[in-house]
Every structure is written in structure tokens, then in C-alpha cells.
């Protein structure tokens, strides 16, 4: 396998060096956090970890976190499994559209989701005002509550359950269902005895993912919980950092450790069940069994469409309405409709332009850098022994699996002092956010590339090798063109996630260094809901068009790279 030793080993060394660097960078923040959180344990009761564990607010926030994430998971489970079962297994029509619309909430940033729901309810809702259904002034905003948070967390993470379940349903060979039917099982018995047991692990894994994602969510509990004084762990950290600054870093590290451990426990649970779901099914899968809905088809279609109307269309309509009125509480009609908010955010507000520019630079830069790293990295990883490969992948996944707040705290700890030797201070600059994005989103870019590389027939490269192509030439002329769509999709996904990111940047931004996510959050916090809505509408349009362009790319990608395509 090594035709020319010197060149072969040189190229392997370079790639190995890159891999080691990436692994170290992925691991460094978590290790730094661990060291900080466990420091001074010898001081007994005064150690930061003990202080945090003794504080009542910690336990209150923990119980709030568990409550909202737990209930949110149940909502996600109900919604996600309804859609997954119906869309995957029955003969309902318009499947592609249903999937796209159901997946959209996952891609819309949480702060926008929260904002749009806030526009839907409450006495000042322009939509309710316009249709004359607004509650009297002074009545409370129902979403400023634990249940409001729970509902939105559930809607936001339902696509995760949907995806996990759909994957496991699609790999269910239809012979298994047919064998049961010919044994005499009626449709409902087929569900209870075959479909549910075989896909149970997919359900559990999806629920675990929904739980982890809700646990780490910042945008929703921040916008709905902080006004009501209802704090979960991520917003507690945010609020402390906002009030006391870096002085409380040690305690925040301890708090982060707490969420981190919870999230990782969830990840472990999910991996365990994912492993169990691999029954090694034989048979012709891929074409799932079509349960005939018969005369219930219209009814079921109406049900799904109305769920989508409630969870997607209504809040988005409210958002659009809010962006078109002169001020909150004014009904929308021919006289009041105005594009002022858009003029304001695009034309005059210096902060909007700055935030957009920042976010585009950060997301675009991260996407490009990660695309450049992903190919050689995936290439080297593929040649590692399976166990080492899995370990490396888990390490790279760590910054993404951890809640964003945890990563943010870890990055502050790591860079709060100027870098040694070169003496550059990253803290308080866009550079810090950039580094955090690189660590967080590497795995998003790497996964499609790895999947695509794994599908590549090794003989293609071997043929080039026999023809005399050296390793770099093979990588650039054979592998790269074949992997390009996956690489591009990875980059696009990174951009999509990073450009709307709030959780990490909420803790890392500083004046002049706002991101798009922070901008919406700050506008809403400052009572500028109309402006926030206008920015959000632009963001939703951007998300939808990026998703559509990914869909166009989908036929050239390995299965599963574009999450909302079967």
C-alpha cells in the first residue's frame, strides 16, 4: 500500500499532524473547563464547585431545566412520531413538502422561534389586534412561563425525533411487515407487534437527542424565561456572567460542568440505544411499506396540515405582521402597513449592518476553513483503525454535543488571558467567537464528507495510484471532485447554523462585535419588537432559501447528508 515510502510517509505525517491538532483543539476547551471547575477542591466548603452545589439557585435552575426539557421532550416525541409514522409508512400525499415544512422549525434559530410566538400571543400582538381577538391590555403574556418554554422547546426539537425515527423506519424491511400480515396480523397488530418494537430504539434515541438539545437551548428560555424570572441552567449562567463578569468564572465553570455532565449522559444513552437499534436487518429495505389510509387519508392529511399551520405558519404570519406595523399594539390594515422597520434595520440602524456583516464573516469564514480541513481530516480518519476512528470522532463531536453555553464558558477560560508567546488577546474580539465556531461546527462539516468518503470505491484511488498519481495529486484530482458535493453541503450547513447562532455568541460578544443572533435578542430585550421582527423575517427567508439550495444539491449527496431529504 505504500509505493513510494518517502512521499507516502511525508503525506501521512502531515495528515496525522493535522488530525492531532484538531483533536487537541477540540479537547482543549473541555479540559480547561474541567480543570477550572475542579480547582481548589481542597479548600473544602469554599471551593467553587461546593459553593455552586450549595446554592439554592443552582438547584432551582436545575429542576427548571429538567422540567422544561423533560416535558419538551414529550411534546417532541408526540409530534415527531406522529409525522414520522404517517409520512414514512402510509400512502399520504405530498410527503416531500410535509417533511420540508416539519423540518423548518429545527433550522429556524430559537430566538426567532421565540420572537414569532411572542408576536402570536399577548395583549400587544399585532396579529391578534388585526383580527380583533387581542386580550385586554394588561393581561399577561401566556408564553412568559415554564409551559411556554416547554411548548417551544418541544416544537423546536420535534424534528430530531422525527429524523431518528424516520431513519429506523426506512431501514425496516417491508418483508417483516408482510410476514406478519400473512400470519394473520391486522394493521393495528402489525404496529404493536412489529413496527413499534423494531423501531423502539430509534424512538428512544430521538427522544434523548430532543432532551439534550432542549437542555442546551438558550434562545427560548432566555426570551421567554428571563422576563418572568424563570431561570434554567444556561440562562442562569448567562445572567450571572452579565451581572458579575469574569469574576465569577470559576463558579460558572462548575455550573457548566453540571450541564455538561447531564448532556453527556444523554448522549451516552442515545448512543447506547442507537447501537441497539442495529438489528442487522436483512431484506429489501429502502422502500417502506405503504399502509393504506383508505378513507381516512383526507382526515389524516387535514390533521398534519393543521398541526403545521399551528406550529409553523401561524407564528410566522404573526412575525410578518409584526414587522409591518409602526409599533407594537397597532393593528395591521391598509393605513398602518409600513415597511419602515425594514428601512430602519437595513438603512439606518448601524448596529444591524454591523451585526449582519459580523455574522456573515464569522459564518462564511468558519465554513471555508472547516471545508478546507474536513477533506484531509476525513481522509486520514478513514485510514485509522475502527476504534481509534470512533474515539477521534467522539472527541471532535464533543464541542458540538456540549450545550453552547458550556463551550462559551470554556472558551472564555481558555482565552481570557492573552495567548502566550505571540501575546495576542482574543477575549473581547470577534476572533474568540470565530475560534469557538470552528470548534463547535467542525463535526457538522466533517460528517457528510466522511459519509461520502466511506461510499467511495477504494479501487478508484488505487487505479490512480497505479497510473502514477502521488497522494496529494490523488486527493486533489480523484477524491476531491467526487467528494465536492458533500463538502459543499457540509459548508452550507455550517454557514446555516453559524450565521444564526446565539448561544455561544451571547456570552462572547462585546460592543461592536454583535452577531445576528445577539442583535435580535438585544432588540427584543430593548422593547424594539417590531425591528426584531423585521430582522427575523429576513433571517427566516435566508434560512428557507439556504435549505432549498441544499435540497437542490441533495440528489448528488450520500443519503442522510441533507436531513430533510429521505
Amino acid at each position, binding site marked *: 500500500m505504500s509505493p513510494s515510502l518517502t512521499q507516502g510517509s511525508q503525506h501521512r505525517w502531515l495528515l496525522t499532524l493535522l488530525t492531532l491538532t484538531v483533536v487537541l483543539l477540540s479537547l482543549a476547551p473541555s479540559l480547561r473547563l474541567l480543570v477550572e471547575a475542579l480547582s481548589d477542591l481542597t479548600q473544602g466548603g469554599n471551593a467553587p464547585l461546593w459553593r455552586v452545589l450549595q446554592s439554592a439557585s443552582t438547584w432551582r435552575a436545575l429542576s427548571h431545566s429538567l422540567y422544561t426539557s423533560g416535558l419538551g421532550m414529550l411534546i417532541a416525541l408526540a409530534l415527531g412520531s406522529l409525522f414520522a409514522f404517517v409520512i414514512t409508512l402510509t400512502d399520504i400525499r405530498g410527503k416531500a413538502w410535509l417533511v420540508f415544512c416539519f423540518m423548518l422549525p429545527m433550522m429556524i434559530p430559537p430566538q426567532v422561534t421565540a420572537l414569532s410566538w411572542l408576536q402570536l400571543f399577548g395583549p400587544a400582538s399585532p396579529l391578534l389586534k388585526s383580527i380583533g381577538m387581542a386580550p385586554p391590555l394588561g393581561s399577561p403574556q401566556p408564553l412568559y412561563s415554564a409551559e411556554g418554554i416547554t411548548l417551544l422547546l418541544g416544537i423546536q426539537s420535534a424534528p430530531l425525533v422525527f429524523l431518528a425515527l424516520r431513519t429506523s423506519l426506512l431501514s425496516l*424491511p417491508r*418483508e*417483516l411487515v*408482510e*410476514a*406478519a*400480515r*400473512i*400470519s*394473520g*396480523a*391486522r394493521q393495528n*397488530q402489525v404496529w404493536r*407487534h*412489529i413496527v413499534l*418494537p*423494531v423501531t423502539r430504539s430509534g424512538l428512544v434515541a430521538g427522544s434523548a437527542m430532543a432532551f439534550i438539545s432542549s437542555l442546551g437551548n438558550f434562545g427560548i428560555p432566555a426570551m421567554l424565561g428571563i422576563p418572568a424570572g424563570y431561570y434554567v441552567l444556561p440562562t442562569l449562567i448567562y445572567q450571572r456572567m452579565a451581572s458579575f463578569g469574569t469574576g465569577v468564572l470559576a463558579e460558572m465553570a462548575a455550573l457548566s460542568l453540571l450541564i455538561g455532565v447531564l448532556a453527556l449522559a444523554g448522549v451516552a444513552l442515545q448512543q447506547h440505544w442507537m447501537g441497539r437499534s442495529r*438489528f*442487522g*436487518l*436483512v*431484506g*429489501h429495505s429502502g422502500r417502506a411499506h405503504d399502509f393504506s389510509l383508505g378513507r381516512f387519508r383526507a382526515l389524516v392529511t387535514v390533521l398534519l396540515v393543521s398541526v403545521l399551520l399551528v406550529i409553523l405558519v401561524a407564528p410566522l404570519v404573526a412575525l410578518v405582521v409584526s414587522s409591518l406595523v409602526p409599533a407594537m399594539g397597532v393593528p395591521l390594515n391598509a393605513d398602518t402597513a409600513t415597511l419602515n422597520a425594514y428601512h430602519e434595520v437595513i438603512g439606518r440602524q448601524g448596529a444591524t449592518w454591523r451585526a449582519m456583516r459580523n455574522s456573515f464573516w464569522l459564518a462564511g469564514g468558519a465554513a471555508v476553513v472547516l471545508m478546507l480541513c474536513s477533506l484531509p481530516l476525513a481522509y486520514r480518519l478513514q485510514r485509522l483503525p475502527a476504534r481509534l476512528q470512533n474515539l477521534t470522532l467522539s472527541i471532535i463531536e464533543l464541542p458540538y454535543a456540549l450545550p453552547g453555553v458550556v463551550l462559551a464558558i470554556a472558551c472564555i477560560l481558555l482565552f481570557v488571558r492573552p495567548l502566550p508567546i505571540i501575546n495576542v488577546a482574543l477575549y473581547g474580539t470577534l476572533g474568540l467567537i470565530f475560534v469557538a465556531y470552528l470548534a463547535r461546527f467542525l463535526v457538522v462539516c466533517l460528517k457528510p464528507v466522511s459519509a461520502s468518503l466511506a461510499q467511495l470505491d477504494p479501487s478508484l484511488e488505487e487505479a490512480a495510484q497505479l497510473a502514477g498519481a502521488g497522494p496529494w495529486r490523488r486527493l486533489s484530482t480523484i477524491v476531491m471532485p467526487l467528494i465536492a458535493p458533500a463538502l459543499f453541503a457540509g459548508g452550507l450547513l455550517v454557514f446555516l447554523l453559524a450565521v444564526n447562532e446565539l448561544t455561544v455568541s451571547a456570552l462572547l460578544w462585546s460592543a461592536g462585535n454583535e452577531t445576528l443572533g445577539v442583535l435580535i435578542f438585544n432588540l427584543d430585550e430593548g422593547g424594539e419588537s417590531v425591528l426584531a421582527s423585521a430582522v427575523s423575517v429576513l433571517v427566516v427567508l435566508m434560512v428557507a432559501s439556504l435549505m432549498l439550495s441544499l435540497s437542490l444539491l441533495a440528489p448528488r449527496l450520500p443519503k442522510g447528508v441533507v436531513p430533510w431529504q429521505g
Partner: protein
Amino acid sequence: MAGLTLKQVTKQFGEHKAVDGLSLTVEPGEFVALLGPSGCGKTTMLRMLAGFEQVSGGEIHLGDQLLASEQHHVLPEQRNMAMVFQSYALWPHMSVADNVGYPLKLRGVRGADYQRRVEQALSLVALEPYAQRTPQDLSGGQRQRVALARCLVTDPSVVLLDEPLANLDRHLRASMEHSFADFHRRTEATMVYVTHDQSEAMALADRIAVMQAGKLVQWATPETLYREPRTSWVASFIGQGSQLMISTGAPGRRLGGNELMQGLASPAAQRHQAVLVRPEHIQVHPEAPSEQDLTARVERQTFRGERYEIHLRMQGGETLLAYHPHALKLGQQVALTLLEGWCLEPDQ
């Protein structure tokens, strides 16, 4: 146990007719094979029998019950059939015993009766020691037997088998063929067996339906199929033999040796009738042929243990296959006696 009647059954996928006007009557307890080359519509026909596909035209009856027509469709779970899938389709989350017992559970069989019947079914395929394993821990042949046991645990009126031996190696195939025959003898169920392997079909079936491009070409016992194939295509598909053109005879007639040899002697322009001559109906005389004899040259020979297969070429250029106990010399001229031949229909 009941017979099956198929009347003009048709299945259309878009423009393409996968099964085209297929009619046949299967007697109760009969073991029939659907035989044909890949893509001729066998699986589609079987799935229509099971009820997984709706028919586009025609009717299927079980005994005197209408199972399927264009307007009417009895669901698979109400047909009281059983099926062995090519991929076995064992449920991965159930043990071997649970897999086998599942159809019983659905029929409300419980307790000691349930235990007894599961054990009985497992013992029939010699798998009792494996009852508590999961299907993933079994070999291909064992999975096959579990699927079979699941079929026989209830008393299905029809058992459908879709190329059940395709995934197995040659030795296992032979022993499984044996157990199918055995299974059929014991249960006396009506069985429909899909295969593209003619020797499998000949060995197992009472009657064989030969299919070509969705159409039924011949429906007969293995012996008839071998001795009296209807068309040229069937003759070349089943068994070995040579097809010659002669000037006498008519489709569906058996010709004696003399008639055959005379028909062969006519000038080529008058020979319009295809005739099948099986190798066992050709006598080869190695001693130097005389003027009147039909002669041929030895082109190639293959040793088959008990005999040699001799590939001959006649003066007119036609090839013939014959058997001979001893090896001959390549290029040697031999005299031939043809004992009988079977006149074929041309292909549509």
C-alpha cells in the same frame, strides 16, 4: 386446504404488464412451481396471491371464495396463507420460538396448546435446541428452517414460497429440497413455489407453470414438460436437447425414428417444422458409416461420469447433442439413428 383458481390475472405497472392474462387451476394439496427466467413476473404473481399487490384485471379464487378481482380485494391477513420470503423476514426482536409462535398468538392459541404446537413445528425442522436464540444468531440454512416452521405452525390453506433456496449453497439446497418435499407430504398443504431453477422445480413440483414475459407458456407435470414442451422456447429452457428443422409433422405430434429421418433428408427449403430430439433418443454408431447412414462429426465431448456428452455437427451444419458410454475421437465421423422426436410450436 383448498385449490386455487386464477382467471386471466393481469398486473400492470404503468405501461408495463408484469403479469399478462394468466389462468390456471391448482388442485387442493398440489405442489406447483412457477418457473421462468428473471423478471418474468413470478414474484409479482406470488404477491398477488398473497394479497400484497392488487390485481389490475382477472380474478383469483381460493376454493369457492373470491380473493381478488379488480373491484374486490381480500386483505393478506384474512387469506389464511403462509409465505416463506426470499430474505426469510424473521422478526429481529423476537426469539426463534416467538417468531414461530406469532401466527398462533394471532389466532388466539394460548397455554399448553401453544407450547405443544410451537415445539412440534420446531421439531419438524429439527430446530428445538435453538428455540430461545434470536434469528441473528442463526446460520442461513437455520433461518430458512425457522421461516418454514413459522409457515407450518398454523394450518394455512396455501403456502407460498419465493425462491426460498436462492441464498443457500449447493449442499444445503439439496437437503432443503428434501425437507420441502417432506414438509409437503406431511402437511398436504397447497403450495406455490417460485423459482428460476428448472431442476429445483422438476424435483419438487407436481405441476409446473412456465412463465415468459408475464405470460403462461405451459402448465403441465414435470414429465410432460420434459417430454412434450409446447414451444421452442420451453424446449430450450427445460432439459437438454437439440432442435432440428424437418419437412413433416405438425406441432404437438410425436414422430417415430423413420418419419424423423425422412423429414430430415428433404431439401432445406421444404423443412419448416421444428422438432426436439432429446440426447437419449439418439444412438451413436462409432464404426465407419456407410453411404445410406445419417452422419455427423464429433466436435466436442464432456465427461459426465456415467457417460460422455457428445456434441455433434451434421453435414447441413446443425448441431446435435447425444450421449455415449465411451470417449470418441475428435473429428471422427459417426453414423446416427434418431429414435423419436417431438414437434414444437414456433415462439410467438
